[in-house]
C-alpha cells in the first residue's frame, strides 16, 4: 500500500530524514520508535504533505500513485490521515462544522452525495460514543479548550469518520492517562481492517501493549536502523536504544507506565 524509497527531507536547509525505506501492506500495523529528534514526527508530517518540510530525494507511493505530486488535501482524499501529535485549536469554527466539511469533501471526491446536517449529526454522535467523547464537544470550537486526552480522542474520532486507507498516529499516546490510553487504543483497534494500514509513531512502548503491531522499526538519525516484529519493542523497553548504537539522552523507552 505505502512504499517509501530512499526518502530525504529537510527543514530550513537542515536534513532530518536521510534515506528512509519502508514498505507497508494493507492490513498491517507498523510502529516507528526512536529517541527524540530522530525524525519520527518529520516523517509523519512529510507523509501528510506539510510544506514546511522539503523532500530533497526519494519517493513515496500510495497504491502505486506518487504521493509527492499531491497537495495535502489531495493526499487526504486518497486516504492518508495524520492524527496530530499536537491537534490544533481553532476557535470560531465549530467541531461539528469542521467534521462535516471534511467528511463531505471526501464524499464529494468519491462522487457520493453530501450528508446534510441532520444525517451527519446522527453519525457524529454515534462515533463520539465510540471514543467516549461527550457529544457536547461537537458544538465547541475545534479542539478549543479540550484537555490533552480530549484532543487525542477527537483525532481518533476524525479517523473513524474519514475511514482512511493509511492512518498515521503521531505520538497519539503522549499526555494520556491510562484510562484515556485505553479509550484511544480501543478506537485505533476499531480502525484495524484488512484494507487499511496503520503507522504508529511513538517514543514509548506502552501504546504497543494496547495496539499490537505487526512490525516495529527503530528510527535514529533520520534512518531506520533496525526492523523487527513486536518483540523488538519489548527488547527496546528492556535494553533502551544504546545496544543499537543510538543515543537517547532524554529518556529510555519508558517502563514506568
Amino acid at each position: 500500500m505505502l512504499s517509501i524509497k530512499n526518502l530525504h527531507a529537510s527543514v530550513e536547509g537542515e536534513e532530518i530524514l536521510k534515506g528512509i525505506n519502508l514498505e507497508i501492506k494493507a492490513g498491517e500495523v507498523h510502529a516507528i520508535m526512536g529517541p527524540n529528534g530522530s525524525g519520527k514526527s518529520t516523517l509523519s508530517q512529510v507523509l501528510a504533505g506539510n510544506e514546511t518540510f522539503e523532500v530533497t530525494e526519494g519517493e513515496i507511493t500510495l497504491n502505486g500513485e506518487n504521493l509527492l505530486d499531491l497537495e495535502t488535501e489531495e493526499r487526504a482524499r486518497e486516504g492518508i490521515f495524520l492524527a496530530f501529535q499536537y491537534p490544533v485549536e481553532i476557535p470560531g469554527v465549530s467541531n461539528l462544522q469542521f467534521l462535516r466539511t471534511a467528511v463531505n469533501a471526501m464524499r464529494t471526491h468519491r462522487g457520493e452525495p453530501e450528508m446534510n446536517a441532520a444525517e451527519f449529526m446522527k453519525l457524529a454522535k454515534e462515533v463520539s460514543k465510540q471514543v467516549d467523547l461527550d457529544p457536547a464537544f461537537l458544538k465547541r470550537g475545534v479542539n478549543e479548550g479540550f484537555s490533552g486526552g480530549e484532543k487525542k480522542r477527537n483525532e481518533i474520532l476524525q479517523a473513524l469518520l474519514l475511514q482512511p486507507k493509511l492512518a498515521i498516529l503521531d505520538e497519539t499516546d503522549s499526555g494520556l492517562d491510562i484510562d484515556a490510553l485505553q479509550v484511544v487504543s480501543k478506537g485505533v483497534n476499531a480502525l484495524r481492517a484488512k484494507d487499511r494500514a496503520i503507522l504508529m509513531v511513538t517514543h514509548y512502548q506502552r501504546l504497543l501493549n494496547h495496539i499490537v503491531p505487526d512490525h516495529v522499526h527503530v528510527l535514529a538519525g533520520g534512518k531506520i536502523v533496525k526492523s523487527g516484529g513486536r518483540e523488538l519493542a519489548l527488547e527496546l523497553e528492556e535494553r533502551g536504544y544504546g545496544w543499537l548504537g543510538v543515543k537517547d539522552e532524554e529518556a529510555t523507552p519508558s517502563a514506568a507506565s
Partner: protein
Amino acid sequence: MKPAPTLSSAFLEPGGQSLPAPLLELREQRGTALVDMPLPTRKTENWKYSSRHLKLSDELASTLPATGKDGLSLSLPGYRVVFHNGVMIPEASDFPDLDGIRIQRFADLDDDEAAGLAERLDNTLDTRAVQMARLNSARFEDGLYIQLDKEAVLDQPLFIVHEVTGTASGSAYPRIYVDAARHSQITVVEEYLSSGAEPVMVDTVTEFVLGDGAQVTNVRLVMEGENVQHIGATGVRQASNSRFESHCVGFGGPLRRHDLMVRLEGEGGECKLNGVVVTQGKQHYDNHTSIEHVAAHCNSEETYRNIAADESHAVFNGRIHIHEDAQKSNANMNNKNLLLSTGAEIDTKPELEIYADDVKCAHGATIGQLDKISLFYLVSRGIGRREANTLLTMAFINELVEQIPVQAVKDAAQLRLNDFFDQTFQEA
C-alpha cells in the same frame, strides 16, 4: 507653500426647498459657516490615511434627483423606511402608527416640531471631529425624525434603507434623528445600498439621544458599490442607565469612512460597539470611534475586526476618553486585524485619555495573517484550500456576526462575505 484646499463653492448652492422653514434656516446657517471650509489633508490627524481618497469634484456637488420609485426589490421583515438619494419615498415605506412612537420625515414636520428639531440637530456631534457631517447639516434634503415617548417599545426592528442611484453624478445627505425617551426601546437598522455606476458621494448623519434607561440598538450595513464614496457619522448621547448597542458591518469601496461617537453622560450607562470591515481590491475603509466616559459607573465594550485582502487598506482609530469625574469607569477596547495578502495594509491606533484615577481600562490591538498550522490541519482532512481559508476567515469574525440581533442583516452580510471569499481564495 500650497494653500490648503477648501470646499468648492459648488457644494454650497442651496439645495431642495421642500423642508419646513426652521430646518431651511438651520441649513442655510450651517452652509454659511462652511464657506472656505478647509478640507482634510494628510496633515489632518483624523484624516491622515483617508484624505487622499476623498475626492470632492464639482460634479459630485449636484444633488441627486429623487427617483420616487422602489429601485431595489427588498423584502424585509419588520418596519421599513426607504430613502432614495437622501429623500424619503413614502410609497416604498411601511411603518406603523403606534402609541407613543412617531416616525416622521422632515418634510412632513409642522413648524413647531421642526423648530424643536432644528434646536437639537448636531447636538450629539463634535463637529470639529466630523468635518463632513457639517456638510450634511448644510445640505440635507430630507430626513427621518423618530421620537419615542417614555416606555414606548418598537416591537420589531425598523429598517431604514438608503439607496443612491448612480445614473448621474452627485451627492446625497441622508439624515436620521432618534430621540428615545426614558425606558423606551428601539432597534434601528441602516442599510446603505447603491445602483448605477456614475461617481456618487453619500454623506450621512445619524443621531441617537437616549433618556434614562432607554435601550437602543443600531445595526449598520454598508454595501454600496465601487462608484460610491461613503462618509458617515453617528452621534450618541446616553443618560443614566441607558444601553446603546451598535453593530457595524461594512464592505469596502473607493472611500468608506465612519465616525462613531458615544457620550456616556449619566451614571450606569452602557455601550457596546461591534464592527466588522472587509476590504479587497484597492478599497479603503476607515473607522474612527470615540467613547466619552463623562459620568461615573459606566461601561463600554468595543470590538472591531478588519479583514483586508489584495491591495486594500483598512484603518481603525479607537479613542476612549475618561473624564475626571468618571470614576469606576470600565472600558474595554479590542481591535484585531487580518491581512490576507502581502499588498494589503491595516493601520490601527488606540487612543486612551484617562483623567480619573479609579477606572478599569483595557485595550488590545493585533495584526496577523491566517495561521498556517491551522490551515494545514484543515486541508490534512481533505478540506479544499478555498473552504479552509473561508472557515478560518469566518472564524475571525464569527463571534461578531453571530451577535448581530437581526437575522435579515446576518443573511445579507453572509451573502456578501461569500462573494468576498469566492473572489479572494483559490484552490491550490
